[in-house]
């Protein structure tokens, strides 16, 4: 064994859901560790030192958002929260509390694996070390040169648009809440710039997407935020 299998802690109270995740994770080269309650989850999180945590938000003995906050207070272990549709405010709260991404139940195995990969990749990167180039479709964003190209042509983007795009690119594949984006782009004390953010993002789509009505890369996570899909 050259490299130990990444340990994934599954905090989920539904046995069937745990069974599905266990099987899927084992099959795809992860080592699952299971917890059925928030308490157990917190213990396992510090005791087993997992590489990633899958955290269900609807636990019987505690608020999943709290669990995420407590874990994040002690470690940088990536957390992916699992939640049902229609609970968008919970997801936003969890993400703002430190979770890295989310999955809406029911989800497919491919979606799960993609999220795991993105989260682990971001975690593996040493802090501060950013990729210099982010490519998606025929678009290349050069974060050093602060340049955006579509095919061979340079695309003119406004400074704000660029800041948004760069933030998304640095977190490529991961969801960013409106609040996270606004803070990155406008600063912590900018106030509610969400409508501006939406307008700028719409502009970016028109500039970078082939079909702005059905964006492939600059996607909206409805009720939560945005995600730059790079795969």
């Amino acid at each position: 064994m050259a490299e130990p299998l990444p340990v994934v802690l599954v905090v989920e109270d539904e046995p069937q859901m745990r069974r599905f995740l266990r099987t899927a994770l084992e099959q795809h080269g992860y080592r699952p560790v299971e917890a059925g309650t928030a308490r157990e989850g917190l213990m396992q999180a510090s005791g087993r030192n997992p590489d990633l945590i899958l955290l269900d938000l609807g636990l019987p003995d505690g608020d999943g958002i709290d669990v995420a906050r407590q874990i994040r207070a002690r470690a940088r272990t990536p957390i992916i929260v699992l939640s049902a549709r229609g609970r968008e405010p919970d997801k936003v709260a969890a993400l703002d509390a430190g979770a890295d991404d989310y999955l809406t139940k029911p989800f497919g195995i491919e979606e799960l694996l993609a999220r795991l990969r993105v989260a682990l990749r971001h975690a593996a990167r040493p802090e501060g070390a950013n990729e210099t180039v982010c490519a998606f479709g025929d678009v290349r964003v050069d974060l050093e040169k602060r340049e955006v190209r579509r095919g061979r042509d340079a695309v003119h983007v406004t400074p704000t648009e660029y800041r948004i795009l760069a933030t998304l690119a640095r977190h490529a594949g991961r969801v960013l809440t409106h609040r996270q984006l606004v803070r990155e782009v406008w600063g912590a004390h900018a106030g509610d710039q969400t409508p501006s953010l939406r307008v700028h993002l719409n502009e970016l789509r028109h500039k970078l997407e082939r079909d702005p009505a059905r964006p492939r890369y600059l996607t909206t996570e409805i009720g939560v935020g945005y995600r730059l899909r790079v795969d």
Partner: protein
Amino acid sequence: MSDRRPDPETLLARAREEERRAGRGHLKIFFGASPGVGKTYAMLEEARAKQRAGVDVLVGVVETHGRRETAALLDGLEVLPRRPLEYHGVTLEEFDLDAALQRRPGLILVDELAHTNAPGSRHTRRFQDVEELLAAGINVYTTLNVQHLESLNDVVAQIIQVKVRETVPDSILDEADELELADLSADDLLGRLREGKVYVPEQAAHALEQFFRKGNLIALRELALRRTAQRVDAQMRGYREEHGIREIWPAAERLLVCIGPNPAGARLVRAGKRMAASLQCDWLVVSVDLPGQAVSDADRAALAQNLHLAQELGAQTATLAGQDVAAEVLAYARSQNVTKIVVGKPTHSRWRDKLFGSTLDSLVRGSGDVEVYVISGDEAEPRPPGRPAGRHSPAREYGWAALVVALCTATGALVFRQLSVTDVAMVYLLGAGLVASRYGRGPSLAAVLLSIACFDFFFVPPYLTFAVTDLRYLLTFTVMLGIALVISGLTLRIRDQAESARERERRTGALYAMSRELAAAREQGDVLAIVARHLRTSFGTDAQVLLPDGAGRLALPPGAPASFPLDDKERSVAQWVFDRGRPAGRSTDTLPAAQGLYLPLVAASGTVGVLGVRPTGEAALDDPMALRLLEAFAGQAALALERALLAERAQREQVEVEAERLRTSLLSSLSHDLRTPLAAITGAAGSLLDEQAPLASGARRELLRAILEESQRMNRLIGNLLDMIRVESGALRTQKEWQPLEEPLGVALIRLGDRLKDRAVAVDLPADLPLVPVDSVLLEQVFVNLLENAIKYTPAGSPIDVSAVRDGAVVRVRIADRGPGIPPGETERIFEKFFRSAGAPPGGGVGLGLTICRGIITAHGGRIWAENRPDGGAAFQFTLPLAGPDIPPPPPLE
């Protein structure tokens, strides 16, 4: 008489009687010939015995009249406190019926059954109190003197020379379960009286003179004994009937009493009762209604009252209609196996019989083996004074009469030269006739006398004197007088008839008008309004209908304005009427102190409500005609109300049936929609797990894909159901944020991804489309549902157009397809819950998608509708307001 009463009839009557008595209290009457014979004493003694035997005895009211022995018997018995009643500044103490009903003793003593209650009591008479106690299942002991019995009323009046006003219906005595006679010989009674044991001494002497004469006492004692004997006899007969002992039955007699529309009938009825009682037979009282016969209101009222009296005395009553009184009566008598007919002596003069034929004569002639008794029917009570016939002031009428005579004289003077004196007399006759036809008896008589005087003075020689030389003229005068009187009498009668016919016509018309309007009324509220309006126009009264709530408590129907205030007292009167189904309040015997008159609205299914009427003018309801008409109104109102209630119930049931149908169809459709994917999943998963028959990898993939797709389908369905529940339960909270429409639409298009891949979806959002304040999650759902609908209902590959425009203060979004369009008449229904168009493809949704859309758009303050495109296909449009009370203006964009 060989016919015997058939057994079944008797048994039926008995069964009805038993049924009536079931649950009723037991009534025992201590009966006596006069005060002082010891009724109260006997009652108290027996009550004490009962109490010793463990019966819960309560003294409701007992008058001791200061007799020590009687008062002593009250010792140890519970006495109900009397109810003080304030009346004209005097405090009267009365039996407290409500307290008694509330206390519910096993046995209650209520002395002096014939007592008249003080004004302000619930009933005018104590026997009504007793009726109510019995109806409540309480046993009652009471006392009664013979002179208070209704049927003996006039006999007693003849004996003691005093008309006793406080009478009690015989039916109470007849229906009493027990009757005990307190008997004392006249000498003993007088002895007790002298010793002061009956009344307190200072009153005794006075009372002696008035009432306690030996002759009186003997006669009264005889009456009491006879009445008791009759009762015992009736009991014996009852016993025999019950036990089938029929041998010694007397031949069944049946007595029929004919009464007419006049007050004299009361006497006939009482006489009939006595005869029937002594013959121990059934008796009937009939009246014949002659069409075209003019009957005054007072007489009509008297007839109704007498028929009522007959019923109270135990007779069966009937009103016959026909042209020939005798023939009708005889036919009815035969049909009822009547053996004896009682009629009143004719009071009119003989010559009328000679002229028009005598009813009595034809009755006797046609009676065959039926015996006919003719008894005196002289008017026992004076006729109430009739209304004056004329309406004009008498002075003016007399003036007109004089003027007519003056004109006749003038005309006579003109023609006298040419014609004979008899022709002049004719002119005067014409004048007298004219006056009689227009004015009352007085003016016509005056006109006749004046005419004769003028005729004599001007036209009969010697002229210009009143002297008459030729005696033949005296005959002329007499004839003139006679003819004028006949004419005036006839015309007056015609006018009276016309008057009363007009009045009847007016009231019948009023009733008819109301019935016609009620027939068209469907809603309870309409019925109530119509009734109130007609009562106001026909009677000049405020009217109000009270309806029971679920618990039987009367209340004003919701939304109905109170036309007169109802305090607790009035309300309790109305409640009493509703509970008992009998009228009460003003102008009745029960609770007459109430401000309003309350009539039960009795329909086929029972009492449906109470009609409260309060006269606005002066005592407009005391006229019996008006009361009867009011009852007719109440009857109509009750029927209409019942119909409205039934219609409402039917409608409610219809709605329930509809809801039930919907529930059933929802359940079946839901269970189908949920089970179908589950069945597919279960089947596929089972096959995959089956190790006996390993599957080829292609087949495995196929099954796995089925599992995945069916799961997704179920997920969508459950999502819809959850959304629906949120919309329905009002839990739909919109979190609006200003955003471009592209975002939710884009997410929807991506979410539908594969299912839209063979479609050309044209999105036309103008670049200058403003930001819209929406809840993106909900709006995305709207887009998804509308697009899914388009996918489901249009042929594969057909295009879908999505567009939005700003339209004043709203943004209008349109999703249009090129499918078959919406079936006519369904553009609105498709938004209904669980509505599925007839052309819906199999495997479609449960019919919630559009309902959810409407819920969401409505929550945004917008509107959603569907229409067909003129060039084919359906278009769904919705608006989203750009401003609203809950939407702050968009922040400035950076």
